[in-house]
C-alpha cells in the first residue's frame, strides 16, 4: 500500500543523502520525494511517497526515527491529510489543436504559463488523480515533456507535522 511519510529533519548538510541512502541500502521504494525548509529555518521537511506492506512501513518509520538528524516522522496515511502535486506539461499544439488545449486546461483550472508557435506549457496543481487525468486528456495532442514536483502533503487540523516549538508563536500573530 502507498504511504506518504513526512520527515522533519535538521536543515543540515548531508541529511537528505542519509535519508535517501537509508531507502536504497535497505531496498525500500521511493515513489517521490520532495524537500524544503519549514517555517523554522533550522529544519526541513522531507515528504516521501513509498510503497510497502505494514512490516516494511513499520521498519521504514523506525529506521527514519533512528537517524540522528531526524526530529519527527509521521505516516500521514494514518491520519486525515491533504496532498498536492504540481506538474508542468509541455504539449505539441498544431494550429487546429490550440483551442482544444485551452479547453482542457480550463476544465482542470490549469494555467497556460508559456506558449510558443508549436507548444503550450500547462501548469497544474492538484492531487494525483487530477494531475493524471489532465495528462491523460492531453496525451492525444502529443506531450513533449512532463516535469512533476512529487507530492507534498500536510495533515488536517488535528495532527501537526511541523516543529511544535514554533507553533505557539505562529498562533499569536
Amino acid at each position, binding site marked *: 500500500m502507498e504511504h506518504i511519510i513526512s520527515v522533519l529533519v*535538521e536543515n543540515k548538510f548531508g541529511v537528505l543523502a542519509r535519508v535517501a*541512502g537509508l531507502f536504497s541500502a535497505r531496498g525500500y521504494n521511493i515513489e517521490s520525494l520532495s524537500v524544503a525548509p519549514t517555517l523554522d529555518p533550522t529544519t526541513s521537511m522531507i515528504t516521501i511517497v513509498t510503497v510497502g506492506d505494514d512490516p516494511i512501513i513499520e521498519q521504514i518509520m523506525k529506521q527514519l526515527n533512528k*537517524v*540522528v*538528524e531526524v*526530529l519527527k516522522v509521521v505516516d500521514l496515511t494514518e491520519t486525515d491529510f491533504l496532498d498536492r502535486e504540481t506538474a508542468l506539461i509541455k504539449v505539441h499544439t498544431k494550429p487546429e489543436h490550440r483551442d482544444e488545449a485551452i479547453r482542457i486546461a480550463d476544465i482542470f483550472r490549469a494555467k497556460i504559463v508559456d506558449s510558443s508557435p508549436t507548444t503550450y506549457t500547462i501548469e497544474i496543481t492538484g492531487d494525483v488523480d487530477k494531475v493524471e487525468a489532465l495528462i491523460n486528456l492531453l496525451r492525444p495532442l502529443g506531450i513533449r515533456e512532463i516535469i512533476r514536483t512529487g507530492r507534498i502533503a500536510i495533515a488536517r487540523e488535528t495532527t501537526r507535522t511541523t516543529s511544535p516549538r514554533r507553533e505557539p508563536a505562529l498562533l499569536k500573530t
Partner: protein
Amino acid sequence: MKKTGADIFVESLRHEGVKTVFGLPGGVVLKIFDVLCQQKDIELVLTRHEQGAAHMAEGYAKATGKPGVVLVTSGPGMTNIVTGLADAYMDSVPLVAFTGQVSTNLIGNDAFQEADNVGISRPCTKHNVLVKDVNELAQTIKEAFYIAMSGRPGPVLVDIPKDVSTDKGEFKYPDKVNLRGYNPTISGNKNQIKQAAEEIMKAKKPIIYVGGGAIFSDAADEIRELAEMTQIPVTMTLMGLGSFPGTHPLALGMLGMHGGYWTNMAMHYSDLLIAVGARFDDRVTGKLSEFCPEARVIHIDIDPTSIKKTFHAHIPIVGDVKAVLRQMNVMLRAMDGNVAEVKALRAPWLKQVDEWKKAHPLTYKQDSKITKPQFVIERLFELTKHSAIVATDVGQHQMFAAQYFKGTKPRTWLTSGGLGTMGFGFPAALGAQKAFPEKVVLCITSEGSFQMNLQEMATAVEHKLPVKIVLLNNGFHGMVRQWQDLFYDGRYSASYLGRLPDFVKLAEAYNILGLRAEKPGEVEAVLKEGLKHKGPVLMDIYTDPYENCYPMIPAGGAHHEMMLEDPPELTQAKKGGSHKRKVDEGEGVLPA
C-alpha cells in the same frame, strides 16, 4: 585564549577520558600528530595498517566497554578503516573514528588523498560529521562520543579538514550535547514488562536467548538472576557469549547454524522465547518460517528497528536490557517467591533439554596422527580457565572456539559476528591487551585469517603487547572448504591455501617467539610453553585439513534439521581419497 584545532582535538579527547588512540599519520593530520607527541596523557598506538587500527579500537572497546578511538589520515587512510567501521556498526561497537580531510577550500577538487569520507562511511556508521569550522570542533567531538556510547552503541566518524586542525578557535569543552533528534529509550514500558513477567511465570518450556546487547548493557548479573530465579535455560548468540557463564548448569551454549543440538532443539520446541539484546540474525534463526514455531516471543532491545525486523514479537519491549531486566526481576520476585513451585514447573523441560544434550553432545575423535582443532581449543580452555580474554578471527576456528571455549565472564570474548571479518582477531586481541596489559589475551586464528592483518606483529612488539596467537593451521579456508564439501561436490575452488609461509620463521622475523606443533602429542607442550612466555608468541598448530564443524544447520534449514556429522557420501569420498588426492596434487597442504 585561542587554541588551534589540533590542540582543541587533544584537549577534547582528554575531557572524554581517552587514554589510547590507535592510528597512523598522513599529510592532513600531521598537525594533530604533532600535538599528540608533545603530551603524555593520551598514548598513540601506531599501527602498520589503518585496518589494524580500527580493529584494535574495536578490541579495546569490546574488552573495556569504553569507546575505541581511531585517528587516520584522509583518502586511503580513511578507506582502509571502512571494514572496521562496518564491522563495528554490525556488532554495535562504540568507536569514534577521526579522519583527516583536505583543506575546506580543496574539498571537491579531487585533491591529493581526497576521498568523500562522510559519503563513504555514511552507510556503515551510526553517525558521521564533517567539521567545517574550528569553533564547532569541540561540540562535534562531545556529540560523537555521546552518540557512540549511548543507545545502541556504534561507530561515529568525525572528518577534520586540515585547515580546521590548524585554524585557531575559542576552546571551552561543552558540558552538554545538543541533539534534539536523538533520544534513546532506556527504561522499558511497565505494562509490557509486567505482561512479559506473567508469561514467564506461566511458560512450561521457556528459553532465554541472549545477544551482544546484554554485554554492552552490562546485564550479566540480571540475566543470571532471571535464569536462576525462574529456572530457565540460557542460550547465547555468538556476540552474547560471556553474558552468562558457559559452565553454568542452565547454560546451553551458542545457538544457531553451529549451535549445540540440544540448544537448537530447545529453541525449536520452546513455548516462550525471551530474546534479550539479540536481533534474530539469519545465522541464528535459519529458516524463519520454521523458527521457534510454537513460541510466544518477548523481545527486549534498545534499538526499536531490531524488533519485528525479521521475526515477530508478541511482547516487544524497547529499552536498555539491564534496566528492563531489573524492573522485570523485581516484578518476578514480587509475583512468586516459591522457588520449589517454579522448579517443579520447569523440571520436565530441563530434563528434556538434558536428554537432548546427552543424546548428541559436541564430539570429535582425536587420534595420534593429526590434531583436531577442537582438541586444541579444549586444551586451551583448560589451561587458561576463567582468566583469559579471547579474540578470534572468522571461520571454522571461530565456531570451534565458540563451541569449546566456555567463557564465563562478559567482555572476554571478542569476535566479529555480523560482518564476519577475517583479519579482525589479531588486532582486536592487541587492542584488548593494550587495555589490560596484565591479562592473558589469546588470539585464536587460522592461517587464512591471520594473513589478513599479520603486519600488526610489529605493533605487538613495539608496544610490548604479549598476545598469544594460537594459529590453527589446516591449509584451507576451512569453512569455505566445508561448504564446498557439503554443497559443491567437493570442488575446492580457491579454498586451498598453497604456498603458505613458514609461520614460525615469520614470527621470528618480527622478533616474536614462534612455536610449532605438527603432531597431537606436541600440542600440550607448545600451548604450555607459549602461555608461559612473557612476550607475544605465535603457536603454529597443524590441524586436520578435513575436519568439519558440526552440528550445522544448512543455510535455509530449520533448527531441528541439523546435520550432526559428515553425510555418508562425503565420508566415503574422503576415505576413497578423491578429496585427499585433489590436495596432494597441489603444492602440499602444510609447509614441509
